[in-house]
């Protein structure tokens, strides 16, 4: 398999951590891709022009990290990152959606500043995204305090770990840990996993 990646994308990191946790890492060849370079050839693999994109051994191209992770999860015999059925499946997918929403809002903030001319930036948009991140983190703090993040590693916790790591990378000034001790303690432990350590974005 081939993975189009960028070293700072939190969605790519999710895929990379999932591959490490499921023992599939060795089967994935990596192609570094700068999607913001006007000359990029990413559209040949992903018409949406985004990373991650996975080209399977059969030549099928999967874009979108949830789809890629769903695919990877079907290739190994270990414990599944997303339970195949039952209430656990919806809990994991829901945690994934919440954490992924933090990524979406954080990436939107970064793009607003990096990809647009300075005089075309809109504070209202930045504030809206920041508010979403804050609300999602508050909901996660309650979950963490109730023990809802404990247990075996899942696609939900992987995505949350990558989302928090991305906030540290891009918005350390937001100090997301303030007022969220349970979530901070959870992340402190989770980020020690070898899969997280091996994928720390370059600062």
């Amino acid at each position, binding site marked *: 398999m081939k993975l189009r990646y960028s070293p700072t994308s939190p969605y790519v990191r999710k895929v990379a951590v999932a591959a490490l946790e499921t023992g599939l890492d060795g089967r994935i060849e990596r192609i570094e891709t700068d999607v913001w370079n006007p000359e990029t050839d990413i559209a040949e693999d992903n018409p949406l*022009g985004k990373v991650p994109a996975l080209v399977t051994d059969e030549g099928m191209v999967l874009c979108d990290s*949830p789809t890629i992770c769903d695919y990877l999860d079907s290739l190994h015999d270990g414990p599944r990152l997303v339970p195949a059925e039952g209430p656990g499946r919806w809990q994991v997918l829901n945690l994934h959606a919440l954490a992924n929403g933090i990524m979406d809002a954080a990436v939107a903030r970064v793009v607003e500043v990096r990809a647009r001319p300075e005089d075309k930036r809109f504070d209202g948009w930045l504030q809206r995204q920041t508010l*979403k991140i804050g609300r999602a983190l508050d909901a996660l703090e309650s979950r963490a305090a109730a023990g809802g993040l404990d247990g075996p590693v899942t696609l939900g916790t992987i995505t949350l770990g990558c989302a928090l790591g991305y906030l540290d990378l891009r918005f350390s000034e937001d100090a997301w840990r303030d007022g969220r001790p349970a979530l901070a303690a959870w992340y402190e432990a989770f980020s020690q996993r070898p899969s997280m350590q091996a994928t720390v974005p370059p600062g």
Partner: protein
Amino acid sequence: MKLRFSTTSPYVRKVSVTAIELGLDGRIERVATNTMDPKSDHGADNPLGKVPALITDDGERLYDSPVICEYLDSLAEGPKLFPPAGAERWRALRRQALADGILDAAILRMLETRRRPEALRWDGWVRLQSGKIAKALDQLEREADGLDGPLTIGEIAVGCALGYLDFRFAEDGWRATRPQLAAWYDGFAKRPSMQQTVPREPA
């Protein structure tokens, strides 16, 4: 179950079409939600502040249309809109991801041209998103004969994406260079589930 909805959201439409196709529509109570209204209480159901959000009979809150649609699929008897692991599943999920990517780009373009203060609008952004939409549509045109198989979430998502382009960007004339996709959509749009969910501005 309760569904937070808006009459213009194409992601909500995916959920509604799915529910109708599965015969579950009658079990869903609808709660109209304006996400742009700062006084709206929908943040309590989805900290990310988005529709669709589904509150299940067990009180679980699900969001993100792919998760909600797959949950509904798990409740219904009969042929699955999300096939089990295997080639058919990846085909369906891949198609959904492509269609959702079209929607993500179309929503960003709509926000740029309708919601952002006029002085802060930037044509470069509109071009970037329009380029993604066009390339993804070209890809769908190349695969159009594959759209006629058994119904999956992939075709539902493609149908809702094309319907949204007609709703917001009819002037693009996406059909002009994509005759096969246009022919497929012509048939698909006649399904009762599509007819009952045509987007419209709130009264």
